[in-house]
Structures are given as structure tokens and as C-alpha cells.
């Protein structure tokens, strides 16, 4: 698809690339808008001993020009990560562009929260901030060019290594799945039993109450000499 040799085709290709670069400004990732004191949280359900890397980039909204400025130094984002038990794993302030990493030690739902800490946004930015975010989990965190350089791997070896990492991650996820399934099964079985025993108990109580009522009423009437 790359234009090889043909002049005008090559120029068009370069133009397209340039346009693309301008449009996306180096990041083709997902983005969202966040208010001044707003906090956005994302949940990552991961097995244990898994590394997670998050990248973000912020852009400030320029009220006069009505566009988002390409990049604004001085804007900070506070990143907080909580593990499934609620304990804070990571709580740090980063600049307007940042990268945070953490490794999970317990399997479960980890919560990654981002909020802006700068108050001058309201003055200059019209209270809106654009945040580009990308989160990589598990074997996606590996930097393969770096591994290739460090271990001096050929391309085939690198590919095989990537495959092995991927499979290892799948295995971890499956172990986690097994653990979750067992807990779910225990919960289901206990719910099941409780429903059953409660219903039986309720029926028995009802019948006994009915019998007692009849007996009581009969003796009451007999006592009052009505019957």
C-alpha cells in the first residue's frame, strides 16, 4: 500500500500521513472530557501478579479560540489506584502528560481514578479538559523492541516470545476464572439452601399458627359458655 517509486502517489501518501498526524496529534487513542473537580474512575478486573501501565495526555480547552490547545504544561492529574480490598496501591500526582504503572498482588477489581487538581482551569479553560487515555494490561505491557535488544533476539524468537507471554497471561486469567467460579458456586448453593429452608419453615409456622388459633378460639368460646 505504501507508494513505492511513483512520485505523485508518494506525495499524496505523505500528505495523508501529515493530515493524520495533525488530526490525531500523536495519539490515536480514546479520549473523554472531564470537568474541573470531576473524578473519572475505571475498573480493571485482573488476576494477581499482573502489570498494568496507563498512559494519559491532557489538553486544555481554550475559550477564546474554541479549540483544544495541543498541550499545556502546568496541568496536573492525580492518579489513584485502589486494590480489590480498598487499599490504595498508587496515589500520585503527575504532569499534564503521564504514565503510571502498578502490579496487582491480589486478583480482583482494581479501581483507577483520575482527577484534575488544578483550580486555574475554571479561569482559563472554561472548565473543560480533554484526557486521552490508554491502559495496557498483562503481556501488552511488555516492550518487545526493548526485550529484543536486551536478549538479542531474532525476529522469529521475538514472535515466539510474544506468543508465550500471551499464553501465560491467558493461563493466569483462567486460574482467576476458576477461583471466581468457585466462589460463585458457593454463594449460589448457600442462597439455594436458604431459600428452601425458609420456605419450608414458613409453611410449617403457618400451619401451626392455624391449629393453635382454632384451639384457642374453641377453648375461649367454651370458657365463655357460648358453645
Amino acid at each position: 500500500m505504501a507508494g513505492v517509486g511513483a512520485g505523485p502517489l508518494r506525495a499524496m501518501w505523505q500528505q495523508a500521513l501529515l493530515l493524520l498526524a495533525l488530526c490525531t496529534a500523536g495519539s490515536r487513542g480514546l479520549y473523554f472530557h472531564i470537568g474541573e473537580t470531576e473524578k473519572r474512575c475505571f475498573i480493571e478486573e485482573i488476576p494477581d501478579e499482573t502489570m498494568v501501565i496507563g498512559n494519559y495526555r491532557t489538553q486544555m480547552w481554550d475559550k477564546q479560540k474554541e479549540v483544544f490547545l495541543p498541550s499545556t504544561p502546568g496541568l496536573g492529574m492525580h492518579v489513584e489506584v485502589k486494590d480489590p480490598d480498598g487499599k490504595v496501591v498508587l496515589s500520585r500526582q503527575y504532569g499534564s502528560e503521564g504514565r503510571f504503572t502498578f502490579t496487582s498482588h491480589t486478583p480482583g477489581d482494581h479501581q483507577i481514578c483520575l482527577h484534575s487538581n488544578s483550580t486555574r482551569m475554571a479561569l482559563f479553560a472554561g472548565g473543560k479538559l480533554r484526557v486521552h487515555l490508554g491502559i495496557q494490561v498483562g503481556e501488552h505491557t511488555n516492550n518487545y523492541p526493548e526485550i529484543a535488544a536486551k536478549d538479542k533476539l531474532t525476529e522469529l524468537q521475538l514472535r515466539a516470545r510474544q506468543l508465550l507471554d500471551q499464553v501465560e497471561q491467558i493461563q493466569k486469567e483462567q486460574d482467576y476464572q476458576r477461583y471466581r467460579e468457585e466462589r460463585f458456586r458457593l454463594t449460589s448453593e448457600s442462597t439455594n439452601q436458604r431459600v428452601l429452608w425458609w420456605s419450608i419453615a414458613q409453611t410449617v409456622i403457618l400451619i401451626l399458627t392455624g391449629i393453635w388459633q382454632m384451639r384457642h378460639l374453641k377453648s375461649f368460646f367454651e370458657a365463655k359458655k357460648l358453645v
Partner: protein
Amino acid sequence: MPIGVGGSHGNPRPSGGEAGGTHAWLEGAETKEVAEQDCRPPHPKSLPFGGLRFFFGRSVRRSRRHLEFLQTPGFPVNHEESKEETRSGDNSTPRLFEPEIATAGMGDRIWLSFPVLLLAALPPELLPGAAGFTPSLDSDFTFTLPAGQKECFYQPMPLKASLEIEYQVLDGAGLDVDFHLASPEGKTLVFEQRKSDGVHTVETEVGDYMFCFDNTFSTISEKVIFFELILDNMGEQAQEQEDWKKYITGTDMLDMKLEDILESINSIKSRLSKSGHIQTLLRAFEARDRNIQESNFDRVNFWSMVNLVVMVVVSAIQVYMLKGLFEDKRKSRT
């Protein structure tokens, strides 16, 4: 959701034996534990009551990206599986490679070309340049949408790429949310109300696509929403493949290295079939748990009906007996 590793449907469950055979192969292989974990998950206790078939249900599809490469045609997993079962601990080179070696009279050149051929069996879209797996760009996020709020996300796209978005409501009251997808010009492409999951694919133009999740119809319950974006044909990937060339060292050497490759591939193959087996098992467990819930539901219904009937009967008897008491009294007097 059916996953590519479909070969194990009819197989008996030889998890213990399989692990034993696998372990023998992997003695020389680098990396870690395949068989040291208990291959056989704890066998579930049988229930006191039987379960009914659950003929409809919600399937939770999550983290598809890990399983994508299993679906790649040409990857020798599906048809290799049945061969594996019958091999019973044979340590020699797997049958897939044998014919090639048998005809290799010329020495190293053929052995080199074979792994390349193997990788060339992959569909051409995955092979820009030389050989390799294209990592498809996708991202998934799970977030909490508070009651009465709407949250939007944007994804910049180039021309003629494909954007697939899949979302599911994981938690929260009725498990439903409004979904809205708009093109860069603002035209509404998809608008769904109060659905609990959905999948949409669009062929894109240049610009930022916006999609929103709307929980304004609910005043008290917050929803946990999972969504996944799968992007294809993004165009810039070709450059990434070329970049790797700068970092690798040396060329692919022959003779000894081929055996290393074979060993690695064997290790991958055995792990994948183990994955397949465990997945089948988990599927069965999940189905069984669904059945538990189904029987639970039926039992609640049944005993509630019994409850109601007993209550009505008991009160009828009471009224009857009371009336009877008074009737007798009047008869005896007159």
C-alpha cells in the same frame, strides 16, 4: 460465545494424562510451569436436587483480545489437537513437521523456509512486510456510571478503518443503559434505549466518533458498564511492524535454532490445548451454576404457591369451623 479452539468438544477429559504427556515434552523448554499446577480443578460437589436446563441466559463476554490470536486461521491448533490425544507421550518431533524433514535432502535451506511457510499460512492482512502477528488496536474499559448522568467517549479514526464497539452492563438495578453513537459530523449512527448489551460495527470516515452511555432515566441506581473498542485497518500499523526490524539482532540461524523454535512451538501448542480443556470445563461449570439458579427460581415459585394455597386453605378452614361452632349452639338450643 464460541471461541476458535473448538476441537475439544468430543474429547474425553484426560486432564491428568494430558498433563503427564505434556510435561515430558517440556523438559528442555525454557519458561515456566505448565503442568505443575493441578490440571484438574476441584470436582464440584453434587447437589441434593437436580437442575433443569437453562435455555436462555446472559453470556458475559470479556477480554476478547487475549483470545484473538486463537481465532487466527492457519495457526495449527485445531487440527493438531486430535493428533495430540493419540500420541501418548511420544517425545519425538510432532507429526506436523515430519513430512518436511523426510523430504529435506538438501540440508538447511528447506528447514529455514519451513517456519516462514508456517507463518505465511496466516492470512495476508496479518503479514505486511515479512512475517508476524499484527496487534489489532483495541481497548476496553469498565467504569461506573452514576445515576442520572451521561458520559461520552471519543475515538479518532482514519478513513476506511473499521470500528467495532461492544458494551455490556455488568451491574446495577435493571442492567440497562441508553447507548448513542455519533459520526464526526454529528449524525446519529446508533441509538439504543435501555439495552443491556450491544455490538456495533461501522466503517469509518476521518474524524472523531463519539459514543455515549446515558443513565438519566434512573434516579437511584448506578450502573457498571464495560465497553470494548476493536479497531482494524488503521493503516499506521504497517509502520510498527517495520520498527521492530531496527531492534532485532542477527538473522535467523539454521540447524540448532530450528529445534529451539520447534520446542517453543510445541510448548505453545500444549499450553493452548490445556487452555482449551480448561475452558471446556469452565463452560460446564458455568452451565451447571446457571442450572442451579434455574432450579432455585423454580423452587421459589413452587414453594410460594404452596404457601399461598396453604394460607388460603387454613383461613377457609378457620372460618368454617367458627361458623360450625355457632351453628351447633343454635341447634342445641332450639
